[in-house]
């Protein structure tokens, strides 16, 4: 069900990633102040943007699940949020490295995007513990969906609040340029962003397919053993176990 287009996406990911790397290293200009390390911007910002879109997508699938009751949506939501969380951690780490290189500190409170990201990370880090702590799988899926919707709505509100809080004290420190981007930068940035987005979707589909395959395998084993009771992995799980 989920594996359609997986091969095309994988090839596209590889092409785009290689292309993006090539552009970053050979095409994009070196920043006058920050030097080579500024190029981490091409990693950090796409990570951040795709992670945020992933979180919002998780919320959208959450809405779909509540409306239709189709567990496939719950699985999609779970994987989207789980992958976005990994991307969010990467965004925080790359942001921190960039801050250190550009400003000498491992963390800067003055960069509203970074701060908002920290808060969003703290919130979504609760997703798996929440799921894990609810044993009944129906309730688990519903609670997770409600969480994904509330957290998804929270993201823009949070960015707004943090930006308001910081904007009157300090200017942005981690902007790539003063305001506009020269052509070479823009192209490199867009390709990097596209590469990250396609990579995310590919990984998402891979994980969905893998989980579905495990479920089908379990069902087959059970039928072969002519066992009426469902076979479940020992122990509880935060991930959806059945479609």
């Amino acid at each position: 069900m989920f594996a359609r287009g997986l091969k095309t996406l994988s090839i596209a990911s590889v092409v785009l990633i290689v292309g993006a790397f090539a552009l970053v290293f050979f095409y994009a200009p070196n920043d006058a102040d920050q030097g080579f390390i500024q190029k981490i911007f091409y990693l950090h910002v796409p990570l951040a943007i795709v992670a945020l879109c992933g979180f919002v997508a998780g919320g959208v699938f959450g809405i779909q699940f509540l409306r239709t009751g189709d567990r496939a949506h719950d699985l999609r939501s779970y994987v989207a949020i789980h992958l976005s969380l990994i991307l969010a951690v990467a965004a925080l780490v790359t942001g921190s490295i960039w801050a250190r290189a550009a400003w000498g500190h491992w963390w800067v409170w003055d960069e509203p995007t970074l701060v908002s990201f920290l808060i969003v990370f703290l919130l979504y880090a609760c997703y798996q513990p929440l799921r894990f702590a609810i044993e009944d799988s129906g309730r688990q899926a519903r609670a997770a969906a409600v969480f994904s919707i509330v957290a998804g709505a929270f993201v823009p509100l949070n960015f707004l609040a943090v930006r308001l809080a910081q904007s009157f004290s300090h200017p942005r420190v981690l902007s790539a340029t003063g305001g506009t981007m020269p052509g070479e930068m823009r192209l490199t940035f867009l390709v990097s962003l596209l590469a990250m987005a396609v990579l995310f979707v590919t990984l998402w589909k891979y994980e969905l397919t893998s989980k579905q395959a495990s479920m089908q395998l379990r069902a087959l084993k059970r039928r072969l053993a002519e066992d009426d009771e469902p076979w479940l992995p020992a122990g509880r799980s935060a991930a959806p176990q059945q479609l």
Partner: protein
Amino acid sequence: MATATDGPAVALRDLGRAYGERVALAGVTLELPRGATLAVFGANGAGKTTLLRVLATLLRPHAGTAAVLGATLPREAWAVRGRIGLLGHEPLLYRDLSVRENLRFHARLHGVGEGRAAALLDAVGMARRADEPVRALSRGMAQRVAICRALLHEPELLLLDEPLANLDPGAAGAVAPLIGRESGAARVLISHDVELGLAEADVVLGLRGGRAEIVAPAGSVAVADVRELYR
């Protein structure tokens, strides 16, 4: 929408319900006419309580169809909630409030007056203890108050999970007119007392592993058949 007063009290076709991945009910089909009694038998874990909770609209059916008092579940559950009375294992009473306060709360939730509460308490013999907190009551007394709670809104369908457990013979006799055949309501009764259950029933349902092993009019079911379920 059918809230017809002439349709069956309960109509199930192929009802299924799972807890997570474990199947609690599967393929249950039966019909219960108005005012009649359905006795449900089965070993622990056979699905009796699950069935009761589905009929109470607390659980949605996962498969098949269920209609209670003419309303299809779960879509039309809101229409019948006020006409069903559930007496489960939990008395559903707040331990820190008095008996009277508890009944008042439930009366308000159901939109009925408190007058009936006093009459019911009297009928079960708890009128003198109406101002005691529930936490001070014995299990038998709490059970009697729970019966009042379940009957407060004059339900047309009674769902009773071992209603006489914890009741001494005197109390059992006092509640019989309220929750017995004479009440006039359709009843779904879970009981481990096989003879008593069969005597009360019009229709018998025997569950094993969530599946209906016996679905028959009470007259055609022998005590031995029911005891088989518990092996």
